[in-house]
């Protein structure tokens, strides 16, 4: 009887908690997200020329020599960023493949430079941002390589 007296509230409290924490809370938050911040709530979709081209937050499969390449040894496997030194080392390859002046490529990297500690720390760039900038600046060069 004593065990039974505790099992009934345990079962009921389990179901109440399940409904509140496991259904109502995430669904209400989803509703708020969809209404108030639909862009972020749906994965920060980026567009080029009106077409969706993936999430701003994720790396993309840039493998052609005309693009800056992402890294493939990150913790997440989809790290969108590369260090500045890694980016600079790719400048000659992109120059050879596209003819875009190295000075412009380096300026582009500086334009999109970020820091791991906000104002200092290691310099890095977001690969998609830089590549998108190149595509927008040289649409005719990049036309054969994009979707």
């Amino acid at each position, binding site marked *: 009887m004593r065990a039974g007296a505790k099992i009934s509230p*345990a079962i009921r409290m389990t179901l109440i908690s399940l409904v509140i924490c496991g259904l109502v809370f*995430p669904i209400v938050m989803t509703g708020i997200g969809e209404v108030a911040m639909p862009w*972020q709530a749906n994965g920060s979709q980026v567009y080029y020329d009106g077409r969706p081209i*993936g999430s701003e937050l994720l790396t993309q499969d840039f493998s052609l020599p005309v693009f800056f390449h992402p890294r493939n040894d990150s913790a997440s496997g989809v790290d969108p960023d590369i260090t500045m030194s890694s980016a600079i080392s790719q400048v000659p390859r992109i120059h050879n493949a596209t003819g875009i002046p190295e000075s412009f490529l380096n300026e582009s990297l500086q334009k999109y430079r970020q820091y*791991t500690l906000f104002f200092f720390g290691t310099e890095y760039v977001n690969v998609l941002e830089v590549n998108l900038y190149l595509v927008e600046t040289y649409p005719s060069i990049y036309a054969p390589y994009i979707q």
Partner: protein
Amino acid sequence: MLTLEDLFVVVPVWGLVIVLSWFLSRYLLTVFTGGKSRLDRIFSPVEGFIYRLAGVDAAKKMGWKEYFLSLLYLNAGQAVVAFFILMFQQSLPLNPMHYHGMSWSLALNTALSFSSNTNLQHYNGETALSYLSQMSAIQFLQFTSAATGLATGVAVIRGFAGKAKTIGNFYFDYVRALTRVLLPLAFIATIVLIAMGVPQSLGGYSYEPTLQKDAYEWIYRGPIASLVSIMQLGTNGGGYFGANSAYPLQNPSQLSDLFEIGLMMFIPTSLLFLFGRMVGSNREGRTLFLAAYAIYGIDLLIAFLPHFSIGRGVEVRFGAAASVFWTVTTTAFTTGSVNASLSAFNPVVILTAFFGMLIQAVPGGIGTGAMYLLMYVIVTIFLVGLMAGRTPEYLGFKIEGQDVKLAVASFLTHPIIILIPTVLAFAVGAERGAGLSADSIGFTKVFYEFTSAAANNGSDFLGSAANTVFFNVSTGIVMWLGRFLPMLFMLAIADGVATRKRGYGQGLKTGSMSFVIVLIVSIFILTVLTFFPFLVLGPILQFLQGFRTSFGV
């Protein structure tokens, strides 16, 4: 070495969290002593409705047995529900990707893991769990296990404080932990996380074209922000993704990274101040706070010693400093979420991670951290009392033989449930099933697995590689023993001292700085003496081998 630039990250987070925790502790005092509040108008009717629906009397004082059994039955019921959701998700709604149910051993491991606030994950969430499982198994247990931990921590504190002459009522503490603390804070945190870029959607996963011709990527839209909010606030640590908080959709930027670190520190820190408030002497709370943060700070200093740069297994946007800061914090607060692959770190960082998990109280998980600190206080006062030839006293009451026995039983639970299964794993060759060999690296990983399980931490090296029947079942048992046995012992002590005569005032001045130092030294010695041989075989040997290699010997 810890540079000025690293301090630029660490100091503001510490400062902000400590100040906000101080204010939160004032709110928690009102919540858990049933003090009048303007929020009663909103919350009291809801809570009254929940009590009636569940058929519980939230005003009834419970003894330690009743308090413990109530929480044990509730957590068991919740684990059973989650087990069935995980195992049969293919037949349940909200599964747009048509993922199969988990095997029995994996479902068992996951249910025991999340119900014990551990969040060890032997699966990759984004490719194994339906929306329903992520919400109604994972997030659900992250809330309830955090509420259970918070309730227990508060009950133990209430008993030690002695003003209420009881440890309280479990359902009162549990329901209020949810309605007045965890749900409102998670609500705010979820909105902040969405604003920072963490998705919150039920729109389905999609394989979408990207910029380069014929290239595609998966975009995992899911109820991620709501899960991350409680996973950090409730020191749970189990992520939506296999890569946890290294995955950009779970942790998009440096700012979200620091915000998530702050979330995991918030409630455990405020409980240390709550102790002072409940006792009626902020100095007593200060003692717990200073001891816990001193050891946490020493861990950070040690972890920053080796040079560390962005490389394999580290995310560029966090850099070295935020990766190390996160790893030390997630183990010190026994959360277990990760923002970098543990294999990326120097063995010295792993050693400090071990310290956090072996001590479990610097400052430890939600509710349990404060509970373990009080366990160390009892043992320390007893040891010092023996050396000084004084009757051991704390907060004006005499510490009796029974209390010391229970505190030591609670302390010994940890080494027993870590060391025996670690040895057993190698004895039966289970490490091979997880793709490991019996060298210092393999040993570190298996030892870490059981330490993380026993400490209800949940960070691990193995991940889905440990999805074997041996590791699923063994860590499952270890997680539940590591969770509930110490709760049983500590509730018993707290209930015993709640009604004990107070006011001797002959004991050590536990509010003094000298006691803080004694407590720190005692925690350190107790832990190191217990685990030293195992640490030597694992991370220390690995460190020395790395040293030898670097000298070319």
